[in-house]
């Protein structure tokens, strides 16, 4: 029997090379040979019949399959007006607006409406910052889509299962670190044991990342091993940070002992009262300690100022009243002698504040130590309402460098927003104006009586802007308008 494959094979190599028996075509094809036709004509006639059969089939598929079914939804869909606005936001790729809307939807237990799901998943696939926000608002329909599209599988990934050894054996570094962290919550000693078993064969980079995962479930039982790691320079900073979280650890005890030996408080009678002064004695810092211990504690090398800050950074904030009779916040405001001009222990205290997530200390530090006003980790602990005076300071011409850092990380208060608008209109701005306009897009408050979008649109009426700045100003104004609109439309469901 001559099939289409035979006809194609002959036509591909050429009928001059390969003959074909058209008399053996399937009878149901209905081919009738034309005695006067040349071989090529006859083959084209036969191919036309095969082609007609193929075309009539039209892509029908033999077999059976079950329908796809989506689970019932448990959250209501985003209200239609908000969905329409969000379409616009996604189309314009206004990531900051979308992020805020997704958070707001999660808080109000609303899910993405069906048409939005593919577009939002595509955009979040490109912007890692959006990914954690998408999962909670996908709804059953969204999860169904993610189950069928490997590109979106990140949105429905289950939490790491510490019983799944395959992840530890064959996972990526991030997956293994997550697995280790999950196991630490269940079995801290077992997790430590697993890490110790592979420690020798892991690279320096992997050791650091995996050791960080041990912050979960940290306890005094970890101390002996962490103490050993203080001797390994590549991982010592991470190990030291972990041990410093254990208040009764030997490292902390050594640090407190060093503080007693090398730092003291004197009080001067000055107008307004007795002002404490921190007196540091560098010559006493390493007295009585062997060089190895100094090295493991991070006190052996570097300038004197750096060594003192390393020391201060190891002492928990709660230990200071017992050591020097001052709390950590008060310490931040002390004059310091013995470490050189304008020297202080702010950087060391900042490490403590970040480690302990101590907002009170952080607020005190950014107010007292100018050099810490660009420390993003520290500023993350300082609410916007506590930055108003700092931002007023930063918007003065000589301090513009600090403005972007202080304005980052949250929604501005109405007072801050007003200050920023005034600053932008003043003409006293500099090259940071563009960056501040970018921040304004997501940080300007939208629940204010003041229409800050209009305020930004009006800036070119007051000062000359470069084309890029003008574009940034109008872009920020549009983002604010969309945020405001979405905030009303999302909340509208609750008012009905």
């Amino acid at each position, binding site marked *: 029997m001559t099939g289409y*494959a035979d006809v*194609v094979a002959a036509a*591909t190599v050429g009928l001059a090379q390969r003959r074909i028996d058209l008399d053996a075509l399937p009878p149901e094809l209905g081919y009738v040979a034309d005695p006067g036709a040349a*071989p090529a004509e006859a083959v084209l006639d036969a191919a*036309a019949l095969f082609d007609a059969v193929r075309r*009539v089939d*039209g*892509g029908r598929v033999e077999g059976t399959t079950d329908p*796809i079914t989506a689970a019932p939804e448990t959250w209501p869909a985003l209200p239609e007006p908000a969905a329409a606005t969000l379409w616009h936001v996604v189309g314009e790729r206004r990531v900051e607006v979308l992020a805020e809307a997704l958070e707001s939807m999660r808080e109000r237990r609303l899910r993405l409406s069906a048409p939005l799901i593919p577009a939002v998943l595509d955009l979040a696939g490109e912007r890692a910052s959006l990914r954690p926000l998408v999962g909670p608002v996908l709804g059953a329909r969204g999860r*169904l889509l993610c189950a069928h599209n490997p590109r979106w599988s990140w949105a429905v990934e289950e939490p790491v299962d510490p019983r799944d050894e395959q992840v530890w054996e064959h996972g990526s570094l991030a997956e293994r670190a997550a697995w280790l962290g999950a196991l630490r919550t269940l079995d801290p000693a077992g997790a430590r044991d697993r890490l110790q078993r592979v420690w020798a064969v892991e690279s320096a980079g992997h050791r650091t990342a995996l050791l960080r995962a041990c912050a979960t479930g940290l306890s005094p039982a970890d101390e002996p091993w962490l103490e050993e790691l203080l001797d390994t320079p590549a991982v010592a900073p991470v190990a030291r940070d972990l041990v410093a979280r254990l208040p009764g650890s030997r490292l902390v005890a050594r640090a407190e002992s060093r503080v007693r030996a090398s730092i003291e408080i004197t009080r001067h009678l000055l107008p307004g009262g007795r002002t404490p002064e921190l007196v540091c004695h560098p010559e006493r810092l390493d007295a009585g300690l062997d060089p190895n211990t100094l090295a493991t504690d991070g006190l052996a090398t570097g300038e004197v100022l750096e060594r003192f800050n390393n020391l201060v950074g190891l002492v928990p904030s709660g230990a200071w009243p017992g050591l020097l009779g001052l709390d950590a916040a008060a310490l931040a405001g002390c004059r310091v002698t013995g470490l050189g001009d304008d020297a202080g222990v702010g950087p060391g205290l900042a490490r403590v504040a970040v480690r302990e997530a101590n907002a009170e200390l952080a607020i005190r530090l950014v107010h007292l130590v100018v050099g810490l006003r660009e420390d993003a980790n520290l500023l993350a602990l300082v609410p916007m309402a506590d930055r108003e005076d700092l931002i007023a300071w930063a918007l003065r011409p000589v301090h513009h460098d600090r403005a972007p850092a202080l304005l980052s990380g949250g929604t501005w208060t109405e007072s801050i927003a007003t200050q920023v608008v005034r600053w932008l209109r003043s003409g006293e701005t500099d090259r940071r104006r563009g960056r501040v306009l970018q921040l304004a897009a997501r940080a300007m408050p939208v629940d204010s009586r003041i229409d800050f979008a209009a305020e930004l649109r009006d800036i070119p009426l007051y000062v000359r802007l470069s084309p890029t700045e003008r574009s940034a100003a109008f872009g920020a104004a549009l983002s604010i308008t969309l945020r405001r609109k979405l905030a009303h439309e999302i909340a509208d469901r609750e008012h009905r």
Partner: protein
Amino acid sequence: MAVAPDGASQVAGRKLARLGPWSGTGAEAPLLWGQCRGSAKDPYRVMIDTSRPAYECTCPSRKFPCKHALALLFLWAEGALEDRGARPEYADRWLHREREREREGAGVPAAQAPEQQSPEQQAAARARAERRDALVLDGMAELDRWLCDQLDAGLARAATDGPAYFEQIAARMIDAQAPGVANWLRSMTGITVTGADWPARLLGEFARMRMLARAYQHLERWDEPMRATVRAHIGFTVAKDAVLQTEPVRDTWLAVGLHDVDEERIVARRIWLHGRHTGVAALVLLFAPHGQSFESNLVPGMVIDADLHFYPGRPRLRALPGQRFEEWMYAGGWSILGRTVAEQCAQRAEALTRDPWLGLWPGVLRGSLARHADRWCVRDDEGALIAVRAPETTVWRLLAATGGASVTMFAEMSDTGINPLSITDREVTGGGLVVL
């Protein structure tokens, strides 16, 4: 393109064959016209009588035909001049002069305006049409021979010869005034890199193309609708006025799909319509240069109460909107019967028997999206499956909109499956039309 005076002119003509520098272009057999912006203050006026052929351009070039005339021919071959506007006065004047000259040469007396043609003028028009028929007939005979030669030599040459394999015969088809065939040949460029089964597909295309060539060579054997179908595939255009003079079909038409095809220099827009009372499907074709808007405001979801005039040929599909009585956005409430896979495939098969060269066919299916053997399919309510051949985004939008529920789908059907364009359902879409 054999009429080009040299290779440089051909290249220059190709470069100019984009609608950007052109304005006021149009075609009404056998005349082509247009104005091309050049280095002079005023645009050059270009006119071509394809029946002789004769060329005229107001540019100072000494080459004949000039690059502007060649570019206009390219645009015509690509379908960019189809049914555009009224014939301008300058083109009429030129054509009149050309006819005068022709008559002087042939001793024929002077004629009046085309719409008031004398028997002699009508005879001359018939003669021009016969000349074109003869050109096309020669072209189809040559195409027939070329196709047979390819089989003798082996289709494998298509992979080694590159674009030239199709381009030479396509240029010959332009000269033979068969632009539809030329476009078809050019659309096959690159087929050899579209999957291992390309020889099977190419052989199918060649077999169908030969059927067309043979059908034109024996046009007298067919009835009038079939002749019109064959002529349409060859590339004969039908004047818009002539279409608008046909008996209209008035209905309430829902625009159910829109599909833009990005071609080399223009965007072709297909708008599929579904008649509420007649159940008839229709295709409105629009063309626009890249970056420019289309003349019509028809978009999916729009309903027009209007006359549609269908182009000749069968099955009836391509249409021109005539008089519009009313328009609004679809709000649901129609009883639209979605067919099963078997019913819809049978309907398409019937259409293929009427037009074996048919491309896309509109389908109205009732079914749901399903997976079978790692492929997306539509599963009708009886469990029959048809492959989905759609952009990935369409599949995800369909799954998002339906969640796997059964809906009525408006789709383009091809040889390999369906491309869903929009859906409607009382429950799933609230009765409205969701465009995918």
